[in-house]
Each structure stands twice: as C-alpha cells, then as structure tokens.
C-alpha cells in the first residue's frame, strides 16, 4: 500500500495528514514554503474571550502533532505538475516524482491584485506579504504604510501591523477602473464591512452598523461618511478617498489620494499626497486551485466562496478519481474551518483506502465543519453557507448527469 500525498502544509493539509496517519497509513505532505503552517502562520488576533489566536503557535503544534503521528513533511518543495497515469496520481516536484492512489490538494488561497499606477515600485506589496514579513519573518515591511482596499483581511492585518508598532497612515480604496471595480465602490465595500462590525472596538461603530440595515440608510452612511474616515484601532478608514497613484523614485515615497463620490468617481482637484515607505494592496482572497484545474476537475464560479472552486462533495471528494480537496481551495474561510475540513478529507481518504468502517466518523466530521463555521469569529463572506449550498446543488447535478451518461 502506497502513501497518501497531500499538497499544502497549512491547517487543512496538516490536520488531514494527522487524521490519516492516526489510522495507520503513510502520509507525505509537500509544501513550497520554508515553514509549515501556510497562511495560518501570519494570523494573530484577540478572541472575544481575551485569548490570543497565535498562528505561529497553532502551526507549530499542528506540525508537531503530524510528526508525532509519523507524517513525513517535505518543505521548500514546489510541485510543478500533477497528472493521472493509469490508476495513479503522479506528482512532479523540482527534485523528485511521487506516486499515489489518493491525492489531497490543500493549496489554500492567493490574493487578488488591484492594479494601480505605480504598483510595481519596490515597497508595494500584497497585504498578506506585509503580514508574513511582520509576523513570520519578523522584519518590518516599512515604517509607515498605506493600505489600499478595505476588507476583512486588510482590517485584520492593519491591526497586526499596529501591534508590531508599524505606523499605518490610512486604509483606503483604490481608484475605480475595470479590474478594481468592486473594491473601489464605496457602497459595495460598506456592505461587505457591515458584517464584520462586531470586530470593531468602538461601541459607536457597532451601534452605527446596526442602524445600516436598509439601502437608504447605507446610501446616507456613504454620503455622509466623514472625508477623513472613521478610526479603527486609531487607523483612519477612508471610504470616500481613493488612491489614484503610488509615487516614488525607484521605491515607494507616497501615494496620491483623491476624494471620491458615493459611487466611486474621483472629484477633480481634490488630490493630495500622503507620504509612506510601503503600500499594501488588499484585493481579497481567492481559492488557489491551479492544480485541481491541471487534474481536470470541473470548476464552478461561486461568488460567496471567493471565486472558482473545484467541484466536490461534503466528504471533500472531487468527481476525479482519487482526488480530494480541503481548506481554502474549496472557498475562503478561516483556519478553524480549514482544520475541520482537513479532518473530514482525511477520514474520507482513510475510509476509501481501508475499504470502509469510518462512515459514522465522517458524518460527525461533516457536522463539525458546520458547527465550526457557525462559530467562526471572522467570516470572509456573509453568505458562505449559501455558497456551499450552491456547490452541493452543482455536485448533485453533476452526479445525475454522470449517471445518465452511464445508463
């Protein structure tokens, strides 16, 4: 019996590996980063009960548990291709070729870039890049930054920068153009922020967001949104300003911002410069699913899940034989959901390899994903459950079609 291969050593991949190894099977986890933990590594926030969710500690403990369970982890190993030959998956890394009957893709998410004039200057980086530099590599991305893009991820990371004593001049919108459209529309952004208002430390912001339950109130909110923004953790969040250009000679020296109308149009003559030595671009996360595409898995675009996701069922199994998915590749959610999805995928794989016997554990694990989702502190999309429901429907349609073809 060969070993199960998992691509991605983040919370989903590691928890799947632990689950499979604890059932007595051999597991190899491959990841291209230099430390195990994936995007969990950068996470740092205070939970409502006053405890800190420390991504580095959580990652270390997952890696430790995996190693104790006998999991082999190969770091700093990029996977360049996968293909199915006969009845096996062939995984090509830069140094070796691996074979397996059961392959789990837990490749996580990537950040959507927002093209803005000047964005190739050294000092411009994705907001996740600044998070990794600060919390994982422990080097300041700069002394004073501007964050372009107002969303759950950028607000959370702004706070992390603040904790590390890095000055954030403001969080603001990008100038509206075709690719930035949604991120640049104040109304859209306001809508997406309202469901995370419970994270705001100010009672005023919490109360304000409760009042914004209908469109008229939201429109009023945007129209009268203070030009200099409202402050969250002492950082101005400006929904009525947009970055029109990032400037600097050979590196970032600042951004040019302008006032925008409630619908996102730049008001001429309002441009001003804000000095900064780094700029974070925050376009939000999307499932990183290239390997599933290479493997021939069908995809569906589901807005609520963050983009194109590979088709899969509740047991994290795709319609492609021997191919499973778990974590943010299945939709953008927090690390705790990824962990419970990893457990489910791990059980489904072990059940298939061992020829059954784990059905009730799988049902329990599926129920646990739902509970974790309901209790999640950070929800990246308010309608994530609706997204999952759509996916389930696509799965059933796909199954019915396959049956029809077979008949």
């Amino acid at each position, binding site marked *: 019996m060969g070993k199960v291969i998992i691509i991605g050593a983040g919370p989903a991949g590691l928890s799947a590996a632990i689950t499979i190894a604890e059932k007595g099977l051999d597991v190899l986890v491959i990841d291209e980063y*230099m430390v195990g933990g994936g995007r969990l590594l950068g996470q740092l926030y205070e939970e409502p009960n006053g405890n800190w969710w420390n991504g580095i500690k959580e990652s270390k403990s997952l890696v430790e548990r995996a190693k104790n369970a006998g999991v082999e982890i190969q770091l700093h190993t990029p996977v360049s291709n996968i293909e199915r030959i006969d009845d096996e998956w062939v995984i090509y890394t830069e140094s070796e070729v691996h074979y397996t009957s059961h392959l789990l893709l837990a490749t996580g998410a990537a950040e959507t*870039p927002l093209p803005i004039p000047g964005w190739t200057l050294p000092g411009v980086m*994705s907001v996740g*890049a*600044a998070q990794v530099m600060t*919390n994982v*590599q422990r080097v300041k991305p700069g002394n004073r930054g501007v964050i372009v893009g107002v969303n759950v991820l950028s607000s959370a990371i702004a706070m992390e920068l603040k904790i590390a004593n890095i000055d954030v001049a403001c969080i603001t919108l990008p100038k509206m153009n075709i690719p930035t459209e949604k991120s640049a529309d104040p109304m859209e952004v306001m809508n997406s922020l309202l469901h995370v208002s419970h994270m705001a430390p100010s009672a005023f912001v919490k109360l304000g967001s409760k009042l914004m339950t209908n469109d008229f109130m939201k429109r009023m909110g945007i129209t009268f949104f203070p030009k200099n923004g409202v402050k969250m953790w002492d950082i101005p969040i400006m929904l009525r300003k947009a970055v029109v250009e990032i400037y600097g000679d050979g590196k970032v020296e600042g951004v040019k911002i302008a006032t925008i109308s409630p619908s996102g149009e730049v008001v001429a003559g309002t441009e001003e410069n804000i000095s900064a030595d780094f700029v974070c671009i925050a376009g939000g996360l999307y499932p990183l699913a290239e390997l599933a595409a290479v493997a021939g898995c069908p995809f569906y675009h589901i807005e609520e899940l963050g983009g194109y996701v590979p088709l899969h069922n509740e047991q994290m199994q795709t319609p492609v034989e021997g191919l499973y998915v778990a974590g943010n590749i299945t939709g953008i959610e927090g690390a705790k959901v990824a962990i419970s999805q990893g457990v489910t995928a791990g059980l489904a794989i072990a059940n298939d390899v061992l020829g059954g016997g784990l059905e009730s554990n799988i049902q329990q694990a599926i129920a646990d994903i739902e509970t974790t989702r309901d209790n999640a502190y950070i929800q990246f999309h308010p309608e994530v459950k609706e997204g999952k429901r759509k996916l389930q429907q696509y799965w059933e349609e796909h199954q019915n079609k396959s049956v029809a073809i077979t008949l």
Partner: protein
Amino acid sequence: MTNRILNHPVLDPIDESEVVTFTFDNKEYKGLRHESIAAALLANGVRTLRHHEESGTPRGIYCNIGHCFECRVSVNGEQGVRACLTPVQEGMNIESGGKLLTTVRDWRASQNG
C-alpha cells in the same frame, strides 16, 4: 540599520543567535539563519531585488509567499530562485537580474515613429 521586530508584544522573541554572511550583487550582508533571502535583504534596507527584464524598472517582493515570482534572483548561479521562499544560508552568492535584450516586442512602430 535593522528593521527587525525583535520584541513583539504578543509573539515570542526571535532567535538572533545564528548569524549568516551572504553577498547580494557582490556586497556583503548579514542575515539570520531561518529567515528568507527577501527578509534578510529588507532587514538590511534593500528593497530592490531585480530590474525588469524588458523595461529595466526596479522590482521588490509583491506576494511574499511564492505566487507572483516578482522576487526572482540568482542564487549561486541558479536563475529564477524566489527570494521570498528561500532560506538565506552562509556564503550564499545572490545576484539580482537586469534588463535583457528582448526579441519579444515588435519594435517596428517605434522605429517608424
């Protein structure tokens, strides 16, 4: 000059015990073992990792987790190594990339104009 976050209010202090010496474009720098090439250079105030092959404009890290390949450098003669994913090591010889002669672009318009 160092931009390292030595004492973080929540996270553990970093291990500064193992210092490595490496070169970037023939200049010597010191970094910490277990940090990435990109982090070691940024801690030394170096943001520009290469110049674009066609336009010659400076580039640094963008995604910092290996997706975008903006941070590609040469390490001990091997091209296309991602500085954000590669741990810095003692004696590493790192070189940035520069503008290349390109045959990709259609130059006719600019020649006629």
